[in-house]
Every structure is written in C-alpha cells, then in structure tokens.
C-alpha cells in the first residue's frame, strides 16, 4: 500500500498539472470569444456558413459518432473480450476503418480547396484552419494522459499492461486527432471575429 502511494503522488501531480493547463487554456479560449450583440449575432447567423465550417461540423459529428460507437462496444464487452473474440474484433476494426475513411474523405474535401487555383477559402477560413492544430494537439495530449493515468492505476500491481491496450491507445489517438482538427475549426469560427483584429 505504501509503495502504491509513493508512485501515485507524481502520477496524480502530473494529472493535476495537465488538468490545470487544460482548464487554463479553456478559460483563455472562453475569455477571447467574440462578444457580439444580439443584433450582430443574428446578422451573422443570416449569412450562410462557409464551406469549411459546414464540413468541419459534419466531420466532427462523424468522428464523435464513430468514437461513441466504439466506446459503447468496448465498454459493454471489455478489452479482454475484444482481444479474444474474432467477430467482435472484426466489428470494432470495421467500424474504426469505416469511420476513419469517412472522416478522412471529409477532411480531404475540407482542405482540398487550398490547392485549387479557384480557392473557395477566404483569408478568415485560412486563419481558422491554421489555428486548428492547437486544439488538435491539446486533445491528443489529454487523451494520452488519460490512457497513461488509467492504465498505470489499473495495472500497476501486475507490473504489465496487456497488449490489447496498445491497439486501443493507437485507435483512440488517431480518432481523437482527426476529431480534434475538426473541433479546432469549429472553435475557430466560434471565436472567429477576433481573428485578424489589430
């Protein structure tokens, strides 16, 4: 018990620091959001969404549905069952690949105007797109921290983590990275009017 407490102190400290960084970042984003009047907001809402914003919303939804479906299956059956049951593993891998393919397709459609001569992006779209990786990186780091903390806590006494978790870590990080990019774009438009401010 004493040994457990000694390794948990730096672990919980690291989690507390990460949590504080995440909260501070979220507070910063909230503080820098656009403060539009009701009239300004309704005028903005009347204008059609840029294509990038529409596609980012759609790909966020696709990503979250995929992640939700996979989480529900794995929570219901457990990691050990996933590893031992071929049918279940094929189902999970199938959903993962289908979700990824759809998401990557949307992502490609989202950024492909960047390379066309008749670009459909204006300068605000490009600014939003350029800042999206900040959100993506943050979400990936938080995912890795969550995996790290939960696995160390769960398997510390055994001294080893089952191989299945390597696949699950890989899968979730890839999915969260893709979703994070789209979420970054959505957040960028939400904060949008501040971009380019002098």
């Amino acid at each position: 018990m004493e040994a457990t407490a000694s390794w948990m102190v730096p672990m919980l400290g690291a989690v507390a620091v990460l949590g504080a960084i995440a909260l501070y970042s979220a507070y910063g984003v909230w503080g820098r959001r656009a403060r539009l009047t009701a009239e300004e907001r309704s005028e903005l809402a009347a204008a059609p969404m840029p294509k990038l914003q529409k596609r980012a919303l759609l790909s966020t939804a696709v990503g979250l549905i995929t992640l939700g479906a996979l989480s529900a299956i794995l929570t219901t059956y457990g990691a050990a069952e996933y590893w031992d049951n071929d049918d279940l593993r094929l189902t999970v891998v199938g959903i993962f690949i289908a979700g990824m393919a759809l998401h990557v397709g949307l992502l490609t459609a989202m950024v492909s105007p960047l390379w066309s001569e008749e670009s459909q992006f204006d300068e605000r779209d490009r600014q939003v797109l350029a800042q999206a990786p900040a959100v993506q990186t943050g979400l990936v780091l938080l995912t890795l921290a969550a995996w790290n903390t939960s696995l160390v806590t769960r398997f510390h006494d055994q001294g080893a983590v089952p191989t299945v978790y390597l696949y699950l870590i890989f899968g979730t990080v890839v999915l969260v990275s893709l979703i994070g990019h789209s979420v970054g774009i959505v957040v960028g438009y939400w904060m949008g009017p501040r971009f380019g401010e002098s």
Partner: protein
Amino acid sequence: MAKAEIQNSIRKLRFEHDEMTQQQLADRVGCSRQTIVLLEQGRYAPSLALALRVARTFEQSVDEIFQLQE
C-alpha cells in the same frame, strides 16, 4: 501598445453603390458573406489585400474606407 480598432464605411458605400448586397460585394472581393458581415460590424480587421480589393470595388483609397481608432 494601446489596442486599435478598425472602423470602416463599407455598409454606407454598399448602399451608395446601387444597394449592392453583402453577397455581391463578397463575390467581387473574393471572400465569404460572413467575412463581409464581420467587416461591416467592425469585428474583423481585413488583410491589406482584402482592404485593397474593397477599396478598388468602391473606387476609393483604403484610408477613405478604413479608419484606425486608438
């Protein structure tokens, strides 16, 4: 350094130019209608290129349309 706000007379100029719609202006200067809305609200400071395209559309100089308020 004090924060600067950029105001502009785009909305007034649109109406003076045959009541040009926001979408028409957006198409002419190559940006989305949302960007024009935010520009008119003074919530978005354009790049120099966009400011020059807006000025060319209304046949005025940039500093006649955009004013820096500190």
